[in-house]
């Protein structure tokens, strides 16, 4: 069994699967259950400053993008930070940490943008014995209207300033949670690093409206006839989050900054994606809210079995391994040519590849041969775009074959060079560099 022990921003946990700051981590009852199920760590649902607790709506707080068989593709929420008194939360955090010394317990925080406010709450959190704090600069709904959450995360200067206060007024590791509602994730990540952050976590949720009720023509879900945009998460956001995680990992200014990957982790494969693109651990919420805490057991098992199969003793063995395969478009090798290949033994004759290619791409898959329904790739038309692979309902029925150097691309009639050649030197590029 592979060793899944994890150290993130100096915080140890028995595995890299943490529950993200969210409703599942709002109180001791849930967190005890989560740790009993096997979660490696928990980021306690965001605490606000002392005083009258915030209030939530008492109508729908959640909405979802579902498949017809009601599997959750995306999840939307308008819950605010904890609506329980600060002292109750702090007492429970202390109690839980004492009961589960081997698990990571990080506390998410969101207070007004003043040094005093941050200093005061940091002291009280540190007193609980919690392992660290995560600065919630991400929530895009509700709290952002009050100048907190993503309102801070969208201004790199604020990110740096608050991070610096936290480092100054606390001995705890500081994780800065980033909002994706920004055009360039590298800016707030760099600001967090400049402020002294021990790590960043991303992504928080994305501004979202699930839809419109077709009868009332009100946005949905609505409370009292009105709705507001929420924060979007779940499987649908994972590709967005992965791109941001990779950007941070491959940008010299932010490379090496520990990353906790968040967004759409529902299984070990998702965790692998994040880790291979440079994250040290992952945080999960939607999948737990959909299926309960037990799913961490399948995640742990799956990752461990994968690592055994691959011969990885620890997650460090493959962490960040995929980063070097991420580059800018201009550096892609234009001499690497692929062609679709249809395995006729696997083909079920649905014709989806044909119609997708015929209507929307390169007319490179024929449908009839000798009067018979048969789908074949026309190599002289195929550009290797992968559309047919993605629409084919049968796994591994259509694959891409990369042509060997010297082989003639039947579309262009030219033999392929063994020498990679990209856009920077391409003759059609008016800005090309000399080869």
């Amino acid at each position, binding site marked *: 069994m592979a060793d899944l022990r994890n150290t993130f921003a100096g915080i140890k946990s028995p595995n890299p699967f943490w529950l993200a700051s969210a409703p599942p981590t709002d109180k001791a009852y849930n967190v005890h259950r989560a740790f009993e199920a096997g979660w490696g760590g928990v980021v306690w649902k965001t605490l606000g400053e002392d005083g009258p607790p915030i209030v939530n709506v008492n109508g729908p707080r959640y909405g979802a993008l579902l498949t*017809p068989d009601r599997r959750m593709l995306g999840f939307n929420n308008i819950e605010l930070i904890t609506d329980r008194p600060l002292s109750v939360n702090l007492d429970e955090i202390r109690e839980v940490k004492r009961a589960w010394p081997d698990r990571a317990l990080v506390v998410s925080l969101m207070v007004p943008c003043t040094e005093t406010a941050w200093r005061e709450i940091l002291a009280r959190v540190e007193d609980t014995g919690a392992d660290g704090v995560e600065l919630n600069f991400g929530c895009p709904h509700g709290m952002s209207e009050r100048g907190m959450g993503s309102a801070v995360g969208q201004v790199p200067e604020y990110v740096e300033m608050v991070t610096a206060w936290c480092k100054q007024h606390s001995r705890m590791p500081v994780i800065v949670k980033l909002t994706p509602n920004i055009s360039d994730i590298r800016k707030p990540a760099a600001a967090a690093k400049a402020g002294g952050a021990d790590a960043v976590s991303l992504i928080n949720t994305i501004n979202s409206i699930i839809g419109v009720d077709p009868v009332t023509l009100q946005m949905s879900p609505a409370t009292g006839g009105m709705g507001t945009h929420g924060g979007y998460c779940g499987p649908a956001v994972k590709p967005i989050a992965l791109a941001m995680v990779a950007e941070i990992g491959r940008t010299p200014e932010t490379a090496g900054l520990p990353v906790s990957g968040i967004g759409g982790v529902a299984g070990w494969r998702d965790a692998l994606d994040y880790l291979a693109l440079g994250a040290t651990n992952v945080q999960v919420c939607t999948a737990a809210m959909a299926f309960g805490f037990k799913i961490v057991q399948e995640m742990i098992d799956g990752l461990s079995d994968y690592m055994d199969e691959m011969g990885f003793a620890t997650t460090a063995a493959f962490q960040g391994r995929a980063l070097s395969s991420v580059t800018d478009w201009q550096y892609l090798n234009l001499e690497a040519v692929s062609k679709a290949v249809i395995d006729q033994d696997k083909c079920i004759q649905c014709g989806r590849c044909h119609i997708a290619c015929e209507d929307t791409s390169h007319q490179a898959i024929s449908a009839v041969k000798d009067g018979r329904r048969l789908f074949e790739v026309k190599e002289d038309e195929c550009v290797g775009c992968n559309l047919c692979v993605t629409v084919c309902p049968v796994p591994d029925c259509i694959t891409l074959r990369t042509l060997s150097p010297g082989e003639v691309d039947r579309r262009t009639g030219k033999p392929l060079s063994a020498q990679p050649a990209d856009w920077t030197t391409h003759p059609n590029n008016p800005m090309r560099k000399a080869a």
Partner: protein
Amino acid sequence: MADAAAPNAAASAAAAIDRALAAATPADVAAGRRSPEALAAAIADAAPRLARGQALVEAERCLYCWDAPCQQACPTGIDVPGFIRRIADDNLRGAARTILSANPFGGTCARACPTEVLCEQVCVRNLQQGKPVEIGRLQRYATDAVMSRPVTALFSRAAATGRRIAVVGAGPAGLTCAFELARRGHEVVVHDLRDLPGGLNEYGLATYKMAGDFAQAEAAWLLGIGGIGWQPGWELETAAQLAELRASFDAVYLAVGLAGTHRLGIDGESLHGVHDAVAFIATLRQAKTPEALARLAVGRRVVVIGGGMTAVDVAVQSRLLGAERVDIVYRRGPEKMGASAAEREWAQKNGVTIHFGLAPLAIDGHGGHASAVRFLPHPGGGDAVRFEADQVFKAIGQKLDESVLASSGLTLLDGRVVTDANGHTGVPHLYAGGDCRAGGRDLTVEAVEDGKRAAAAIHQELLP
């Protein structure tokens, strides 16, 4: 001691007499073998309507194939991926319109089509998952959803054309033709021998396929399009009648089905207790309540001769009425059987035994009533096999009453009317379709397609 023995001897003798009497007892054909409550459950929907959740999940299995094999396999060419996608999209009205515009009897076909040898047989999911999309059940889900609203919520009539067409036969072919012509603005009068419209939908299909008096509900729904007159109790008996129709209407569509039945041509065929399966099913279908069904007499032991859907329908319904033992005996092998594998499985699931390779030899009688049927192995012969029977059903196919038609100038082939692909008979303004037309497979869905094509052709001829 002798005194003591005497009653025993007498009892023993009496028992022997009872046994002898029982062996020779006239056939046990009785009503009320099952309670109305048990019958109500027995004749309930064989495949109930899918619930919304089931329909959505099943609809999701459809791959939306290009040039979909299911659509090609459907004699009426229903855009199957299109209607299934509309179900998944929560557009049941659109799904139903897609189905019914290709096949007005989409509701009956969803229940009665042998989908396992049509659309579902060619579903690509068979290759991938060993199980087709349940197209028939999805079709029912969609069509049922619109039956509570008038047909005019989906289809409208074109402006009146002033043309009048006579349709003879109110089965699927005739009513489809009438409906399609009415939609185009023509006036139609449908003539039929029976009291109720629907043809075999009303008088021929098994009860559990058409639960809830669906045939009448569907016919009434379709007739709601307007412009269709209904002439029941009208039987085509003379060439003069047909000539008169041709004289008083702009066109005539013959969809008379196959009203006659074949004879076995063996001894004992006229004994009491020997019935045409189609007649028995018609009677059964008109017993529209469990109480009425309980009044139908059925044999304790039933033998069905034949191998088509009718054989299965009569056999299973005999079982449901309470027959203890039902045997279907077919002359040839399973591969030649008209009833599909799914139909055979349905029969077996309902306790019917199917025997192959046995040709009927004679029906034995007792006191003028059938008591057994003897068969010879076929082909090849051998020792006769005997099945005890209180009731015998002949389900060996129907035929056309040719006399009127032949004398009306129609060409007949193998006992059916020859037409072109659009149903034109070659006699001016005279069209024919459905089971009476040569070249079909006697399927409801083919009859519908015949009616649809003929309506288009008649319209084209009358209003070029």
